């Protein structure tokens, strides 16, 4: 059976009051105290500004990626007039609608919300609303009980618009894997992943009971002290989204996980193990505000105030979409160098060559699509452009293009980065919604997703990793 990509959804969650729990900001607040906290609060964006931010409009499909090229910069200073929080394949959720999803995601009494302080007057999204069919995400708690947990050190506060609205408590006094901030991180991944999946099902009018298999490519290490990273967030997400007939598993491979997950899902369909599969990735709370200290120093808004999520539906009905071509799937073998050239040869040249194709035969390459406006002020470079330059250089070395053609190659086969710096989320896959639209309109024939993973961060190997696959009509 031919695996087909039927649908894609990209979601964003504006989470300004969770930025303080991102790894970098949490450490800065611990070392600098309230002075950093005040600086952070002073640079946080409103929900309206996050919605009107051009890269976010591209992420949810209201603008094509190429539109960013001609836009005046800085993008944060040129909001899109009358921007909508809903797009053809995505949407942006405000924080006050996300906190109830956190509570709904929790089955152990970890999230306590005071509904007097955060009244639920209807969700800003049908996809979010579908996750709370009972109408209320859980019991309301008294402020006194919330404060008691915070003062005892068992809980961490949840704030909204300057007010305390709830807390998240730890679930063990000596298990760091069940610490309040770790649990909040995991619940944020679960809730945003379920929201991405719900958006996919609502958008495509797919019954939740139809889903047979879910692969989560989320980054969080769910588990307790005896099995840190034990995982299977996939089933937790599937349960929250009402996918009662789905089994599931997690794929972990740092930022390359979404592409591995797509390959695995497509392979299960091709082998006949399942008839359909969902790939889902929830957001990374740890990466909120990762470069906030540098944005604050340069008097920029804190642009990393948003969780990202993605979901994709694959099945075997060739009438419903382009195929995931497993004959052109790239892998980075252990013996390969982790140099930029070595990665391109392993992930792009080798699989194309095996299929008798050339680099220029692929219409669009979706590489690591990090928003450069987040990266450049932090001195971290334009990741997408760096990857396209390397790819173009390899095309020159292989005699496919002339050196002088590099700018044209990048313009026609690449795109500006537009994804939030959420680790796995920018890994090529946010382009799939745009690619599907282009393929259905007849303006695009093929795209290759190329993702890389920083294995060395875990201190188990010095290697990098990567995966790639072609989606085409």
């Amino acid at each position, binding site marked *: 059976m031919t695996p087909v990509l039927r649908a894609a959804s990209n979601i964003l969650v504006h989470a300004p009051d969770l930025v303080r729990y991102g790894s970098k900001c949490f450490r800065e607040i611990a070392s600098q105290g309230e002075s950093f906290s005040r600086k952070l609060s002073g640079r946080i964006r409103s929900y309206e500004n996050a919605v009107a931010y051009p890269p976010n409009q591209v992420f949810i499909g209201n603008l094509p990626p190429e539109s960013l090229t001609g836009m005046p910069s800085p993008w944060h200073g040129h909001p899109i007039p009358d921007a909508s929080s809903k797009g053809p394949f995505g949407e942006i959720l405000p924080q006050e609608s996300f906190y109830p999803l956190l509570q709904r995601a929790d089955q152990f009494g970890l999230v306590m919300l005071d509904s007097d302080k955060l009244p639920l007057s209807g969700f800003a999204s049908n996809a979010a609303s579908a996750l709370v069919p009972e109408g209320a995400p859980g019991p309301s708690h008294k402020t006194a009980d919330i404060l008691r947990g915070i003062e005892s050190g068992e809980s961490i506060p949840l704030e909204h618009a300057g007010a305390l609205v709830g807390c998240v408590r730890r679930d063990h006094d000596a298990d760091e894997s069940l610490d309040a901030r770790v649990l909040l991180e995991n619940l944020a991944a679960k809730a945003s992943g379920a929201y991405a999946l719900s958006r996919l099902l609502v958008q495509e009018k797919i019954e939740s009971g139809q889903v047979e298999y879910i692969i989560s490519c989320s980054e969080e290490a769910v588990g307790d002290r005896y099995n840190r990273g034990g995982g299977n967030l996939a089933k937790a997400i599937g349960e929250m989204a009402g996918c009662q007939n789905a089994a599931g598993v997690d794929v972990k491979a740092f*930022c390359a996980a979404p592409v591995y997950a797509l390959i695995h899902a497509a392979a299960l369909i091709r082998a006949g193990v399942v008839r359909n599969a969902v790939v889902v990735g929830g957001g990374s709370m740890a990466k909120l505000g990762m470069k906030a200290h540098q944005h604050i120093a340069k008097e920029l808004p804190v642009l990393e105030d948003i969780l990202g999520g993605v979901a994709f539906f694959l099945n075997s009905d060739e009438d419903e979409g382009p195929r995931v071509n497993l004959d052109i799937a790239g892998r980075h073998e252990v013996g390969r160098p982790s*140099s930029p050239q070595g990665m391109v040869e392993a992930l792009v040249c080798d699989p194309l060559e095996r299929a008798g194709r050339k680099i220029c035969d692929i219409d669009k390459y979706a590489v690591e699509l*990090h928003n450069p406006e987040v990266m450049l002020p*932090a001195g971290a*470079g334009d990741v997408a452009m*760096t990857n396209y330059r390397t790819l173009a250089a390899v095309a020159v070395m292989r005699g496919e293009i002339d050196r002088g053609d590099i700018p044209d190659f990048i313009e026609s086969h690449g795109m500006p980065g537009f994804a939030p710096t959420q*680790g796995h989320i920018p890994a090529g896959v946010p382009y799939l919604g745009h690619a599907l639209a282009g393929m259905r309109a007849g303006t695009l024939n093929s795209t290759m997703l190329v993702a*890389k993973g920083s294995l*060395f961060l875990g201190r188990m190997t*010095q290697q990098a990793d990567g995966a790639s696959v072609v989606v085409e009509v």
Partner: protein
Amino acid sequence: MFKDKKVIALGERDGVPGPLIAECMEAAGAEVVFQKTECFV
């Protein structure tokens, strides 16, 4: 140029990895006292 010099090699995920910089420096006669690859994404 690098002979008998002490070198700190800082690599970057989308650039050149630390171990590769270290290998080049050692081939040029330097002593690599620290090498690491960072990821900013």
